[in-house]
């Protein structure tokens, strides 16, 4: 097959060359006239023909032309230039920057291109190649640190891990805070499976991770990412875009010579940071050895006992290979691009893999001079083998695994679990047993199709219609082996293994119709945009669960006892419609005013039993201004070094529809108990639910200095979100346990800044720096009806601490119980034991997971044919709850328990009735934890494991590239360019956090609100990865 493909490709190329035999291949380099740096991506066109090409990464091009013909060089931001082909010799060109560089065009909602100068807000753009270069499987992982205000919070470093994609901090307490992902004008599916609602097991979203579906997108297909943050920017996407949007423009074929690009990458990954465990004390209690115990409060290991490095043995080196093959080309009237990707990742945890095949075909056709059509068809197939996390996941199993046992010895010759302490029912799994026998897998087949019509009936009028279809089918399996701790049940009720399988079919069908009209009258110009959209989401999940597997090693639902079968069908469906109007009014290019209005209709606001009184529609406005003050002569004359300057201000209101479907009406649940039947769901229907409302005010400035060598962008925003849709527990007196209600106000304020600098530029060497600064403060001003706390129960992974909000505290508070203290704040200690007490069982905000600020720093160097870039990413401040350490401490495996034989007196006063008097009794009771194991178990508090003010400096990505000079590759006849590159991902992490990685989430992104962000429980961090690859263009 491969051979045939190669001969086919060669054949095509040979035919093409023969046809042009009478012409000569003109080559040359296009450079910047000011700094002499090469300009990649410049279109080189043979005048009055359809023949064209683009320059390579080094600014080189090659085109067949006859002497005397004229070449036209054009590039965004530069003045077009022409050159005549001579009989021989290269044609090198230096392009001058266009003085009206501010006329850069930004793609906003629905593919509407707007002059940058007219935007009343900032819309940072990241090049697709910059992200693709990192060689990460998911594009969002590569965006971290490259955009101010964008935060990517991944669950852990495993292949296929889910991640929150959050712009400008968490705004919704319980709702979805993820940015909308829009590809070529069409919002795509970025949902994560919610185990609780959609699966028959109904489990909390924490022991398994499910990918967020944006992971399916091949980063190599992406031309640019435009990030729309404020609600003003996303007013055009309505409710769905209320958390901001990432607008992805994919690569299209380019007219001119056809080309074939191939690149590959091979990566080795190594996990180098995880907490150590103590190997001095054996299992037991009060210094007495107990082989059955999983608490390590026993005596010291007998000298000479063989201890195994089980943690080191467990992790393996990961390996990834990735291949991209792209064909593109076409004429002025028709272009095509067919890109294919295959990637295969084997993670650092045994039996974790992520494989993906993606094939994407894009064509653009000019059907007539008035109508242009772009059609895309993308098929993606992925396969993700995962492991369990949480209390019985591999990491906590690993930490409590006795080092005197060999981890590799997990299965005997007959395939039985090797036991050390108890029966299969009572002993926790050996982590290698866990990852080998408890299977977790997701397989996804996905098709993304979209068609984009551009109709230009008159010069001033443009009509755009987009239709998109996104169908994803995922089949998943989650199994606990019959002999595993979780799958065996109990001795009295053995379950003999458990399998859960599911099939989920997601279908999104959406479309938009927009018309934009331009008008010019003297110094005044105006653009009017009108549009309407619809979006139809339908997801159906069928899940099956069975127990008592006949063959414990055959993972299929058919292999389970029929009487244990349980099934669930869950359908999530919702629709939205929207209409919007926008007027952009400009005076010269000096002052712009944009007025927008939108009406949204959301099916989630329909009352199923009361059609007449349902109010699914809600409307909101936005206003923004842009003042390009450097257009004034005063600045041109007096501040010549200031190339451009713009001040912006905007105010916008956005509505957010309820985050859960079917929440207005009452819902029933099918009973699985005797006689079947139906009973009411625990969730009360709330017919009075209304949209969450955000009001955003924003001011900003954008300045370019010294021939655009230095750019500064600053924004300040203040976002007040009212009528939060929360899901509190209620008094059962209402008949329900929970209800979606409106209540609570959240205020987010922040500063974002981007500074870009061309520090050094000449013909051979250049150095460019971009810094992205983000500061966000989110505070919960109030909660419904003076509710003291609202918590997310899925995040309650560790005793006495959970993700919750309290009025007056940060949106990202962590809530927990506290040790008792007297009025002066002294620790209250038991007069009997001298240990702290926790008699108050209320939850208080004990930490704030929100970082104080983050800073991303991108450096790019080029020296002749070498280029190099690296991204530093700093997180400064904010707390992380180290629940893994809480667990280790309680079990006596933490390094902090090594001083257990040292007597100590806890500072505090005795709770003897005098604690609040003028002379409380100071504690003098000495405790030796070795003999008082309660020191580590009952007398611990989550406060002790909140790691405060965490700073983490990461070198996220480093890439080196080398393009072989033309002279070297000219001998390879059909190769236009050839390069090699090396990339290191997650190269360095310098942090004061003592656990694996402060970037962690105890839940999957299936949980709304803030979720388990910043709660480290049984997760590992990101491995360091070394990539090597080559890229070749034919």
């Amino acid at each position, binding site marked *: 097959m491969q051979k045939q493909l190669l001969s086919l490709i060669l054949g095509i190329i040979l035919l093409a060359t023969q046809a042009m035999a009478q012409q000569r291949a003109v080559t040359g380099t296009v450079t910047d006239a000011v700094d002499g740096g090469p300009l990649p991506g410049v279109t080189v066109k043979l005048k009055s023909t359809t023949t064209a090409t683009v320059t390579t990464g080094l600014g080189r091009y090659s085109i067949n032309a006859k002497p005397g013909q004229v070449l036209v060089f054009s590039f965004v931001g530069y003045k077009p230039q022409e050159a005549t082909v001579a009989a021989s010799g290269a044609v090198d060109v230096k392009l001058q920057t266009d003085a009206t560089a501010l006329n850069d065009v930004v793609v906003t909602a629905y593919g509407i291109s707007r002059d940058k100068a007219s935007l009343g807000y900032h819309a940072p753009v990241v090049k697709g190649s910059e992200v693709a270069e990192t060689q990460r499987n998911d594009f969002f992982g590569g965006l971290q640190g490259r955009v101010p205000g964008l935060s990517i919070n991944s669950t852990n470093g495993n292949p296929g891990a889910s991640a929150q994609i959050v712009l400008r901090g968490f705004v919704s307490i319980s709702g979805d805070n993820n940015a909308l992902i829009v590809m070529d004008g069409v919002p795509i599916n970025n949902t994560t499976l919610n185990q609780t609602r959609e699966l028959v097991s109904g489990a909390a979203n924490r022991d398994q991770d499910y990918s967020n579906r944006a992971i399916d997108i091949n980063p190599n297909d992406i031309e640019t990412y435009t990030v729309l943050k404020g609600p003003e920017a996303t007013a055009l996407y309505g409710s769905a875009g209320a958390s901001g949007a990432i607008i992805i423009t994919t690569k299209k074929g380019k007219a001119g010579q056809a080309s074939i690009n191939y690149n590959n990458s091979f990566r080795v990954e190594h996990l180098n940071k995880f907490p150590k465990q103590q190997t001095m004390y054996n299992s037991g209690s009060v210094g007495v050895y107990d082989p059955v115990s999983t608490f390590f409060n026993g005596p010291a290991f007998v000298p000479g006992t063989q201890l195994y490095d089980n943690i080191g043995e467990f992790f393996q080196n990961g390996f990834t290979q990735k291949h991209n093959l792209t064909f593109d080309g076409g004429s002025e009237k028709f272009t095509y691009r067919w890109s294919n990707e295959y990637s295969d990742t084997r993670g650092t945890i045994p039996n974790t893999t992520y494989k993906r095949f993606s094939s994407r075909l894009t064509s653009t056709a000019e059907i007539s001079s008035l109508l242009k059509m772009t059609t895309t068809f993308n098929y993606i197939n992925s396969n993700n083998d995962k492991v369990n996390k949480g209390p019985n996941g591999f990491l906590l199993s690993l930490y409590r695994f006795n080092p005197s046992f060999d981890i590799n010895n997990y299965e005997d010759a007959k395939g039985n679990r090797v036991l050390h302490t108890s029966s299969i*029912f*009572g002993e926790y799994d050996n982590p290698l047993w866990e990852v080998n026998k408890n299977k977790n897998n997701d397989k996804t087949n996905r098709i993304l199709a979209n068609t984009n019509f551009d109709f230009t009936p008159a010069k*001033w*009028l443009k009509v755009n219609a987009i239709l998109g279809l996104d169908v994803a089918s995922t089949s998943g399996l989650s199994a606990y082996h019959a002999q595993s701790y979780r799958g065996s049940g*109990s*001795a*009295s*009720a*053995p379950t003999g293994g458990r399998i859960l399988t599911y099939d989920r079919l997601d279908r999104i069908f959406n479309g938009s119709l927009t018309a934009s009209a331009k*008008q010019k009258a003297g110094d005044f110009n105006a653009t*009017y945009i*009108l549009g309407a959209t*619809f979006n139809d989401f339908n997801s159906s999940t069928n899940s099956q669960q069975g127990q008592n597997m006949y063959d414990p090693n055959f993972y299929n639902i058919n292999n389970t006892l029929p009487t244990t079968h349980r099934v669930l*069908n*869950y*359908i999530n*469906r*919702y*629709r*939205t*419609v929207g*209409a919007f*109007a926008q007027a952009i009014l400009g005076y010269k290019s000096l002052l712009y005013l944009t007025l927008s209005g939108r*009406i949204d*209709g959301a099916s*989630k*606001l329909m009352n*199923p*039993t009361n*059609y007449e009184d*349902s109010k*699914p*529609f809600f409307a909101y406005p936005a206003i923004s201004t842009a003042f390009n003050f450097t257009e004034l002569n005063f600045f041109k004359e007096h501040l010549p070094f200031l190339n451009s300057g713009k001040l912006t201000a905007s105010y916008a209101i956005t509505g957010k529809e309820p985050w859960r479907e*079917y929440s207005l*009406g*009452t*819902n*029933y649940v*099918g*009973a*699985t*108990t*005797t*006689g*079947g*039947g*139906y*009973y*009411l769901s*625990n969730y009360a229907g709330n017919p009075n639910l209304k949209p969450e409302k955000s009001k955003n005010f924003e001011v900003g400035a954008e300045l370019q200095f010294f021939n655009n060598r230095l750019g500064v962008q600053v924004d300040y925003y203040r976002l007040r979100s009212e009528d939060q849709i929360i899901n509190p*527990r209620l*008094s*059962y*007196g*209402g*008949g*329900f346990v929970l209800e979606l209600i409106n209540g609570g106000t959240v205020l987010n304020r922040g500063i974002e800044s981007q500074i870009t600098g061309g520090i050094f530029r000449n013909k051979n060497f250049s150095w460019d720096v971009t810094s992205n600064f983000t500061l966000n403060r989110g505070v919960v001003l109030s909660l419904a009806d003076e509710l*003291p706390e609202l918590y997310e129960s899925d995040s309650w992974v560790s005793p006495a601490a959970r993700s919750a909000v309290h009025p007056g505290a940060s949106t990202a508070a962590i809530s927990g119980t506290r040790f008792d203290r007297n009025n002066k704040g002294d620790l209250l200690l038991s007069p009997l034991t001298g240990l702290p007490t926790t*008699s108050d*069982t209320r939850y208080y905000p004990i930490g704030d997971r929100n970082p104080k600020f983050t800073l991303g720093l991108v450096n790019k160097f080029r020296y002749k044919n070498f280029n190099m870039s690296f991204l530093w990413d700093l997180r400064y401040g904010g707390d992380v709850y180290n629940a893994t350490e809480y667990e280790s401490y309680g079990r006596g495996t933490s390094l902090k328990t090594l001083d257990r034989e040292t007597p100590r007196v806890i500072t505090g006063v005795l709770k003897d009735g005098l604690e609040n008097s003028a002379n409380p009794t100071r504690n003098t009771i000495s405790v030796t934890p070795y003999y008082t194991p309660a020191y580590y178990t009952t007398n611990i508090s989550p406060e002790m494991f909140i790691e405060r003010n965490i700073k983490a400096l990461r070198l996220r990505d480093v890439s080196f590239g080398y393009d072989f000079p033309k002279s070297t590759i000219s001998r390879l006849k059909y190769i236009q360019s050839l390069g090699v590159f090396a990339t290191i991902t997650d190269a360095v992490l310098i942090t004061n956090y003592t656990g694996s990685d402060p970037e962690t989430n105890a839940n999957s992104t299936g949980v709304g609100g803030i979720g388990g962000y910043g709660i480290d429980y049984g997760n590992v961090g990101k491995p360091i990865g070394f990539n090597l690859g080559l890229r070749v263009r034919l």
Partner: protein
Amino acid sequence: MKMHNIYKIAAVMSALFVTTGCKKYLDINSNPSIPQEVRAELLLPPIIYQMSNGTTQDNRVIWKITQNMGGVSALDASLLWEKHGFPPASDVGGVIWRMTYVDLGLNLENMINDGVKNEKYEYAAIGYAIKAWAYQMTTDLHGPIILDEAFTVGQLRFKYQDQPEVYAKVREWGNLAIKYSKMQSPVSYATTLAGVSGDGIYRGDMAKWRKFVYGLFALQYGHLVNKPQFKTAYADSVVKYADLSIANEAEDATIGYTSSVAADSNPMGVQMGLMIPSTATTYYSRPTTTILSLLTGGVRGTAATAPVFTSVDPRMYRMLPGTPTIVKVPGLPDINTLSYQAITPNLGSTSAGIPTVLGAVPTGAAAPIGHYIFTDRSRYPIMTYNQLQFVKAEALLLKGDAAGAYDAYTKGIRAHMDFFNQYGRASTTPDPAISAAEVNTYMASSEVAQNAGDLKIADVMQQKYIAQWGWAGLETWCDLRKYHYDATVFRTYYQLTAGELFASNNGKFAYRFRPRYNSEYVWNSDELAKWGGLNADYMTKETWFVLPN
């Protein structure tokens, strides 16, 4: 393009939106996987199931206080209930609360409404009967509870009402149940009610449902023994309603199961795992010395020490699980090698080997097969004939009618033997039925009062304790509370010393449960404060029915 044209287009488009087309398109906010409106017929099966689930879960901790059963764990979380205490910030002990307001709650209301509105009178009758029962259980457990304000749409905080008001409502609903049970529905629901998804208690026999309601009334009046009006008025009500109620063990209110899977089996059975949560959890369901002594001579005499298979009471080995001895005697039946041990409440017994009431694990097996009424297939008792006979005996005895009391007392004991024969033998290897000879022997023994003159209140209450052991935890607790845990009435009850009681009890025994934590302590703290519910010793506050006034 002129501005006003834009506005025109915008106006037209907006108008289009608000009109029918789009709204119709959006009208999909109902779950297609589940019906949105459910008929009474489909609401009934889960309601009946939840009656057994809710009471079983709370019984596990109520039994620790009544000393029906306890744990063998020395952990605080297990022992605090045996100490008459409660775990802070926990929903344990709040399942009946949840049952009444959520699991039955609006399901029951909807069933009753559908029954009344659409002339399905059987469902209205059964609904009111269950509602009356549920509220009586809830107030007996918690004292003041949410009553009139329950299920008010849009309300987040609810007023409590005390027991006299709840009892009055219970009688009102009971009478409505009786009214509807006598009405003829235009369409017969007999087949549906008798089917698998029908009435799991009486299969639609409305006469028996009436008896159930009368039984409920008898129990209610029976709680009021400390009230001055008891002898003059309430005792007669007890007798009247007991006589109108269940007439023999065949008419007992019991819930049946198909027991194919855990969720479809008796919650007190093996599969559901409530009585044996896991091998690691040792908190629940071990018999105590209190019951063991009552079955081995402790009702009137001295209980046997180191009891074995043979006991004065034929129910002993049939109700309690035996502990297999280490030495097996060759040639003798297995059963003779059983010894009987029980835990002492509040000690976190060191006898970890004491099996749960489901029985010891047979050699080579992973789980017990279940024993007495603790099997997957056993019917779950809600109210029994023998129970009501003891209520009647107590009332008559207090009133001064010793002869009538004695008659009801002996009927009660004999009926409980019959109860065993009818409901206690669902295990795959059941114990033999109690023979008439065995019954007669017991009736003639020193454990049973031999004539009306010899009958003491302790005889009645302790026989009632035995008869209710293992299912009517709450009614047993009502009895203990009525007599203030009197050691002369409940002779084998382990009297905890002040030091053994839960620290914040201030030396007092428990008289009520705190309302469910996650329902009330989060939202309703103002209302709780009104009743003293925020005080650490709220649990020791006597409920209204215990008090003289």
